[in-house]
């Protein structure tokens, strides 16, 4: 199983732990992720705030690079995943945009590179049976709130990831790992996303409401699949404590870190020392040798 892998800019900074855990899980499951040589930024929110053609051309540049490898693309960052899917959709449905993008890049792109989120590869390609066989450790009933955020599930006709109001793909993985999935209503609420620096006040409000609901629903940790959600929900807990007086101390980990633990990979290799709120209780529960 070989894929062209697009890590995205956060893999080199705020989400190194995501990058590490995706790589480790891929190796353990024999998924060959070949990083696109010379990949560039997808443009994220600042691009679509600024200029439509810019916001399509940046992902298309990477889709063109992937196309030359002849492999389908795998992304983990939900924002990059969303921008790649939106770009494909626009190119496929809007001939004028396709023409303008071709003129901008000096190369025509037909919108045909398939884009998968890493979790989709796990569920759809590896499959539940094989995954279960590969697990050497269990989450021993750990209560996990799976949090999807916005960009994986919306817009549904474009990402086609899962149900936009009640996605269950991560819950399936949690159950498979022996964890207890929490039935809670804030799975697809917004954490404030790209406002991490510019409107921290909005991030604090929205993340507080999500963390509060996770806590009230009895979660012992949250599993995420987006670097922006991870950093907002994890790092902003100290600000929420200061501003709102709520002390959650709730570990927020990547789903791939939980998968890695269950595959017997050491927490250090999964970058779990990089979490701000210590995930030590989870690690001790699963007991993976360092």
């Amino acid at each position, binding site marked *: 199983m070989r894929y062209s892998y697009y890590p995205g*800019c956060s893999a*080199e*900074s*705020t*989400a*190194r*732990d995501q990058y590490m855990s995706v790589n480790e899980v891929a190796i353990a499951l024999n998924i060959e992720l070949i990083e696109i*040589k*010379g*990949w*560039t*930024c997808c*443009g*994220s*929110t*600042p*691009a*679509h*705030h*600024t*200029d*439509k*053609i*810019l916001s399509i*051309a*940046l992902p298309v*540049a990477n889709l*063109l*690079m992937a196309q030359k490898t002849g492999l389908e693309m795998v992304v983990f960052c939900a924002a990059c995943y969303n921008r790649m899917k939106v770009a494909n959709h626009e190119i496929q449905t*809007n001939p*004028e*945009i396709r023409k*303008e993008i071709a003129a*901008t*890049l*000096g190369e025509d792109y037909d919108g045909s590179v398939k884009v998968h989120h890493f979790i989709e590869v796990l569920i759809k390609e590896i499959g539940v049976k094989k995954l279960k066989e590969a697990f050497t450790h269990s989450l021993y009933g750990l209560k996990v709130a799976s949090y999807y955020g*916005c960009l994986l599930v*919306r*817009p*549904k006709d474009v990402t086609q990831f899962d149900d*936009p*109001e009640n996605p269950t793909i991560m819950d399936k993985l949690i159950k498979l790992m022996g964890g207890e999935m929490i039935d809670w209503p804030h799975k*697809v*609420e*917004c954490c*404030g*996303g*790209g*406002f991490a*620096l*510019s*409107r*921290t*006040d*909005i991030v604090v*409000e*929205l993340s507080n409401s999500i963390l509060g609901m996770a806590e009230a629903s009895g979660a012992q940790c949250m599993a995420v699949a987006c670097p922006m959600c991870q950093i907002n929900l994890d790092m902003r807990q100290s600000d929420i404590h200061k501003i709102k007086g709520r002390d959650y101390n709730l570990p927020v980990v990547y789903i791939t870190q939980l998968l890695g633990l269950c595959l017997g990979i050491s927490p250090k290799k999964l970058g779990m*020392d*990089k979490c*701000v709120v210590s995930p030590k209780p989870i690690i001790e529960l699963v007991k993976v040798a360092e």
Partner: protein
Amino acid sequence: MSIVISKEKQAGDLINDVQKLSGIDIRSCLQCKKCSNGCPVTGLTNVHPSDIIRAMQLNVGDKIFNSDLIWMCASCETCYARCPMKINMAEVMDALRVLSVQKNGPKQKGNVPLFNKSFLRTVKMFGRTYDIGMIAAYKLGSASLLQDTDKFPMMLLKGKIALIPSFQADKKYTRRIFGRKLGNTQS
């Protein structure tokens, strides 16, 4: 929100400009307010997504750029997911942000356009984002230098922020992309 419409001629073409930029038929909105009920930031402002649409339908003109919601919308797309008329409100907001910058709309809390500019400048330079360069440019410009300084050493220690930019990007395409004029493309 109360919408004030004055008698003198409005900067009339706003609705057409937004429609041209976003490709979305704003006139089809029924004001069912599902967008406003699902919007995560409506609790933080008095202007709701359905008000923005209504204001455009009533032709309030450039006064719309005073609405703080335009720069508070996190593009979560809950509005679009629930709209019975399939109006992609997130794209309408994108169009309004583009127009606001073009027309020199009022500066709002957080100065999001400056953040966007700082972010995109690093992409133009390196092909990828460079957090420290982006944060420095944004903070110097928005005079919020002290915000989050407590987190910087911790992030550096955890390797969650890169000191030097990445030089691995192939800028073949980004050079062409950033060679064109930004902010006025039509779809």
